[in-house]
């Protein structure tokens, strides 16, 4: 049984018929790293926030189930009943994601206190331990600092400390290294992989960087325009992606082909495939929403064209 199973996730602006996320499906096994890949605006962060129950004011989950270890956390009113020991999340822009007026040690301790029924002093001590555990030297000293006094890499480690201190079953990492240097990036990746080994949690790794995907993930889910286009093991990503959009992505990165494909010029219904307006293979049947279907074990595809073209 999967650790995390998200099915039929639909997210929209409150009161609007135009969906932000359309029938999003993905799952994560224990100890597995799933990469959620897409351009800006593809909805990957939104999907994560929906799972976390952190959708902002004015945006709501209109349908979907979020199964953790088999239990559906999503309630009928669109909220998600989750606590930090189930699913935890780390964010982009680590310095901004920490409270500027609170010492970092205190922030981690607070997370521990809330989730582990410890008293203040024990929580603080546990916090210092965790901070040391994520690779920060001299944790007692660092804990007394405020976020603006620390580097981006250190702040991200602090956030990771906050997230894992609750021993979550699943960790969601939203572009954790986009704002950091490449060298620090590598360190953070190593840290996450080590923690996965140690705690045995699953990871949803959100990124727009295909290089990071190859380095970190076991499986990949490709999104565009709020729709999951393709889901496949990373090994197959490099060899034979089937979805037109995935191929575009790869070709832009690997072969540096400029695929800034402009609108094809045909108006596709808003209920159809979200890539339709940029897809060279698009035609009439693409006006109907292509469901995510399994094309081979572990490989799912959302494309009418390609499904009818099985080699």
């Amino acid at each position, binding site marked *: 049984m999967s650790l995390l199973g998200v099915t039929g996730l639909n997210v929209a602006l409150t009161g609007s018929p135009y969906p932000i996320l359309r029938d999003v499906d993905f799952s994560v096994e224990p100890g597995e790293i799933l990469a959620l890949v897409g351009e800006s605006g593809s909805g990957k962060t939104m999907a994560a926030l929906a799972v976390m129950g952190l959708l902002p*004011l*004015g945006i709501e989950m209109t349908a979907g189930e979020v199964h953790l270890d088999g239990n559906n956390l999503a309630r009928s009113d669109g909220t998600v009943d989750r606590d930090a020991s189930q699913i935890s999340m780390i964010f982009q822009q680590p310095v901004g994601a920490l409270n500027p007026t609170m010492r970092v040690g205190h922030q981690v301790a607070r997370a521990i206190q809330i989730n582990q029924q410890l008293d203040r002093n024990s929580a603080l001590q546990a916090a210092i331990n965790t901070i040391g555990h994520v690779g920060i030297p001299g944790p007692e000293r660092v804990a007394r600092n405020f976020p603006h006094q620390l580097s981006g890499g250190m702040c991200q480690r602090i956030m990771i400390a906050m997230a894992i201190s609750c021993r979550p079953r699943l960790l969601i990492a939203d572009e954790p290294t986009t704002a950091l240097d490449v060298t620090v990036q590598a360190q953070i990746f190593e840290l996450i992989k080590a923690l996965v080994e140690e705690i045995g949690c699953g990871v949803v790794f959100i990124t727009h960087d295909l290089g990071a995907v190859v380095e970190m993930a076991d499986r990949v889910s490709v999104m565009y325009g709020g729709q999951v286009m393709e889901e496949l093991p990373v090994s197959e990503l490099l060899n034979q992606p089937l979805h037109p959009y995935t191929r575009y992505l790869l070709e832009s990165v690997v072969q540096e082909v400029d695929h800034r494909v402009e609108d094809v010029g045909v108006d596709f219904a808003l209920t159809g495939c979200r890539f339709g307006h940029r897809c060279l293979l698009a035609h009439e049947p693409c006006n109907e929403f292509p469901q995510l279907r399994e094309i081979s074990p572990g490989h799912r595809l959302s494309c009418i064209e390609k499904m009818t073209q099985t080699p």
Partner: protein
Amino acid sequence: MTLYPSSASDRPTDSPFVPQRIFVPTELSLPRRWISFMRTNPLFTVGLFLLSAFVGLAAIGPFFVGDPLRTNITEMFSPPSADHLFGTDEYGRDVFARAVHAARLDLTIGLIIAVVAMTIGSTVGVIAGYFGGRVDEIIMRLTDVLLAFPGFVLALIIVAALDESLLNVVIAVAAAYVPYFIRLTRAQALVEREQEYADAAQLAGNTPIRIAFRHVMPNSLRPALVSATLVTGWAVLTVAGLAFLSVGIQPPQAEWGVMVGEGASDIITGEWWTSLFPGGMIVLAVMAFHFIGDDLTETRA
């Protein structure tokens, strides 16, 4: 419908906090779209209606009401009635007529002050922001000093030093608001001068002055224009406040502040209409400016 304050507009588009504008689907007919707009921006709509009412009143009202200066002792202090909508004051003058004429005076003056302050302030602000360095420092120091005076007090002392005339009132109150516009435009100019088009203009061989005024300035005006409605409201309040003290505009001129000032002592003897109505009009007019101005500043997208 806008959802979030525009301060979030510089976040990456993947972030959930991007302001999402929902456009009414264009399939709806024109009146339906208006109704929809009014529903989603209620305060702005109210402000717009109120302001239009006042502008209408100011523009054509004076042609229909009586003479604001005509006295008639026999009718003094008569309460509001069909003949005199707002009653009469101690000289028997029709309060409504005076209020309508005052509307024209106050709104016009408020607007002129705002425009003058914006023009001067924006010019200076762009110069400070674009040229930077010494020029900027000097201008900012001066602005800081001017801002150390509460606006009302500054206007007060300038009018006191000069003659009592309408022109001087405009000068004095505008002077109080110029620093505000300087700050606003300067901040925007600082941003604009880093934009690509400024570089392009420079490469094309334009002189700095030309770039500053022809290219940077129009783009730096946006926050100032947005604030213009609010400033007009403030200007009306300030002018009325001064007039209440008989500074700048004095009796028997028909001006809202003057009327409240004249009517202040009437309250004790129970004649509330001489000061309540003109005062109420001030509040309504300024509220209209605020409803519009606040909405504009919040959805600056």
